[in-house]
């Protein structure tokens, strides 16, 4: 114990390629694809809950609550054991997408409710169809208000990706742990995992901020 340095640069350099590879091949892929699914599905859920007739909107609301009230790890493991023919990576993408779509639907709901009644009324006064009103008037305005919150959920999903360990997907942290196990050194690998998360999250949050400005109605 005494002859071991707290930090060993050679170990750090040795583990870095493994980590970056796992980051790009798994963590990034799951986050990007999961976010796309969550963003699209979340919007659909929000619209269905608001405008579908009662039995449908009620059922959707129940399922959404059920998903939101159970941990993502349980959902990952459930899907992993229930659909054994599907590869774990795909399960990860889909479950992350579905799980976060329930949160994102709430963000959209708030955004949709924030669109003033006068906008709906003006659309009616112009004889616009319901669909056209959603597409051309309500959704663009709702999105503007929701972009920051959606971006934050994307970052939050990104930081949840280590849960993929539960279904045996070797993402960033698991790659670090495997390296540690093989070399009996964990500190460099785990520290670098944290650094990689930070380096990736921070620019994303800046990007979200810029997007928010670009979507504002006054330039």
């Amino acid at each position, binding site marked *: 114990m005494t002859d071991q340095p707290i930090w060993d640069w050679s170990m750090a350099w040795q583990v870095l390629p493994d980590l970056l590879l796992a980051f790009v091949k798994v963590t990034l892929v799951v986050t990007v694809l999961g976010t796309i699914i969550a963003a699209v599905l979340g919007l659909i859920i929000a619209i269905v809950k608001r405008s579908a007739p009662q039995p449908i909107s009620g059922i959707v609301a129940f399922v959404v609550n059920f998903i939101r009230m159970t941990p993502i790890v349980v959902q990952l493991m459930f899907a992993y054991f229930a659909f054994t023919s599907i590869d774990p990576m795909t399960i990860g993408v889909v479950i992350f997408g579905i799980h976060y779509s329930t949160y994102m639907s709430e963000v959209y709901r708030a955004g949709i409710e924030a669109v*003033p009644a*006068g*906008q709906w*009324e*003006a659309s*009616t*006064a*112009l*004889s*616009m*169809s319901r669909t*056209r009103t959603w597409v*051309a*008037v309500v959704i*663009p*305005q709702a999105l*503007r208000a929701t972009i920051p919150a959606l971006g934050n959920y994307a970052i939050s999903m990104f930081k949840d990706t280590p849960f993929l360990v539960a279904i045996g997907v070797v993402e960033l942290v698991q790659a670090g742990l495997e390296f540690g196990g093989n070399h009996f050194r964990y500190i460099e690998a785990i520290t670098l995992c944290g650094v990689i998360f930070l380096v990736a999250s921070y620019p994303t949050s800046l990007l979200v901020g810029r997007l928010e400005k670009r979507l504002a*109605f*006054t*330039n």
Partner: protein
Amino acid sequence: MLSRTDTAPESAAAGGAATAPVIRFDRVQKRFGDNIVLNDLNFEVAKGERVTLIGPSGSGKTTILRLVMTLEEATDGYIYIDGEPLTHELRGGKRVELKEKHKNEVRKRIGMVFQQFNLFPNMTVMENIIEAPVHVLKTPKDAAKRRALELLDQVGLADKADAHPMQLSGGQQQRVAIARALAMDPEILLLDEVTSALDPEIVGEVLAILRDIAKTTDITMLIVTHEMQFARDVSNRVLMFDGGKIVEEASPEVMFTEPKQQRTQEFLSAVLRG
């Protein structure tokens, strides 16, 4: 396009004569919960007529415009547009709601300008104006744009086509909203307190445009306003409302100089003093 305004005889269902009124309220009732806003209301507006509704707030004036625009639905009675039922009709002794498709067809003949403008902030001025002509009336985009520029010129904002609503003053936004409503070539134009949200010195520019439209078109107008001079200038007829009922009905000359009802006298003296 003009034929649309002259089609009264085609609606046999309402038993309309050749001169069916453009708007007809037949025993219309509107209640919100226990609160009866309009009760047993009957009145007609003839083609090309400009009718102003005055009265204290809460008297049901705005509700009437909202009923015509189908933003609200009457709880009883019938509203006819060109002799055609708007949202409900009497069929076999029963009050039956009409299909959304029918409501849409009738709604296309009606335009509305709102107190709060209600422009779409995510679109430019041009996009606001051509949105409905292109997507509802299926006007080719080029033609819709040409018409929009004409209308913008008419409201004095030809140079603002590419601006966003948030970059415009309240008066400018309201002028765009007027152009947007006119772009649909409505047969009926509903003006709901269109100057109430504007700074006093801007009110004049908006009213000047509306006077111009009243003079140069034959659009039927139903107007709710607190601008009594404007009401006097543009309307053929003034209806005084109180408690959801018509208290008095007269030409503007008579209404504003020698109203007969005491309630009208009180209201007008209060408004004109303010």
